[in-house]
């Protein structure tokens, strides 16, 4: 019977609550030594990423989060049987144990901040113009004008990034106080100033929340999004190579290189 995998928990006990997952199947724990894989039986692989399937999956993981430390598993991970599952648990046991230990009693929170990138750039341009003593040679060659234009843009972009870093640093100082780990992404898009996730201990979550409220009262024109608590999706670290690139993906990449070489008629690139 195929098994749909939701997460790895730090317990070999049975799940006492009635939890239902995809296809309305009952969710249960398959123990392996002192940890367990939480699964439900599934009749066929899921073809589509539908809203309901995703929400059902997430709902199960969140119910587990209430009672256990849980390593959330990627959506649509289906194992072909109990034996395979147990052998998988054996391969990953140490990885799972390390992660469960590290993530025990911790929750993930997401913070996103939007800033008005165009306005910020306009202000930077204004500041530069005011302080500018650039030599405006009207008989400059095309090439020199090209360089000047590029250089002006370069300076503006540089200041834009520096400003983003300053803003983020201030916010991060507040949040970091209550976080065990963090991952920050600066300027994912020009308007998405910050996309961050913080790993916070359960008993510090109120402090963390307060820090967010405090930050919100900061400079005007910024927009904020706060999400969580989540299971620690972004903080699971698997040392096995397969955590980075699936084995099948690596083979696909190599195959394509060989195909390209064959098409171009090159023996080696």
């Amino acid at each position, binding site marked *: 019977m195929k098994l749909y995998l939701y997460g790895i928990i730090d317990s070999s006990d049975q799940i006492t609550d009635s939890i239902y997952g995809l296809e309305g199947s009952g969710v249960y724990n398959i123990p392996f030594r002192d940890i367990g894989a939480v699964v439900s039986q599934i009749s066929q692989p899921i073809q589509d990423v539908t809203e309901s399937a995703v929400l059902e999956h997430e709902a199960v993981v969140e119910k587990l989060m209430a009672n256990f430390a849980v390593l959330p598993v990627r959506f649509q991970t289906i194992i072909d049987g109990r034996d395979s599952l147990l052998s998988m648990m054996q391969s990953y046991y140490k990885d799972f144990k390390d992660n469960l230990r590290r993530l025990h009693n911790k929750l993930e929170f997401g913070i996103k901040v939007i800033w008005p990138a165009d306005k910020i750039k306009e202000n930077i341009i204004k500041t530069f113009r005011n302080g500018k003593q650039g030599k405006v040679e009207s008989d400059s060659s095309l090439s020199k004008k090209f360089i000047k234009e*590029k250089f002006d843009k370069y300076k503006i972009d540089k200041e834009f990034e520096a400003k983003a870093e300053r803003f983020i640093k201030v916010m991060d100082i507040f949040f970091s106080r209550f976080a065990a780990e963090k991952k920050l992404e600066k300027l*994912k898009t020009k308007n998405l100033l910050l996309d961050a996730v913080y790993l916070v201990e359960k008993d510090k979550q109120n402090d963390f929340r307060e820090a967010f409220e405090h930050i919100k009262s900061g400079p005007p024109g910024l927009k904020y999004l706060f999400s969580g608590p989540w299971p620690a999706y972004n903080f699971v670290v698997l040392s096995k190579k397969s955590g980075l690139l699936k084995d099948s993906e690596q083979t696909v990449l190599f195959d394509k290189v060989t195909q*390209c070489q064959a098409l171009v008629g090159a023996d080696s690139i």
Partner: protein
Amino acid sequence: MITNGIVETDSPEEFIEEIERAQNVLPKKIDANPKTVEKGLAKLVLILIELIRKLLEKQAMRRVEAGSLSDEEIERVGETLMKLENKMDELKGIFGLKDEELNLNLGPLGDLM
């Protein structure tokens, strides 16, 4: 303040726009379908040229900033970069490729450019 229990924000529309923009559909794999492979290869070559061009530009900017280029050097670099840029625009036009398409997603390493 709109809350769903797990997500709170005053500006859901703006965040949807930015999140979807960040999730832009950059293909991770090069399409090796024989019918489209030529365009795929042209794209790959152009991506690499674009990468080099951008690196050259960046390097030039750093040197201009540091003041380590003579007047004549600025003239020459400017001419070269300008010609490169024009050539790239021409090639993009020929293959019908837009700026956003000339990028590669390297998975966990993020985008190439």
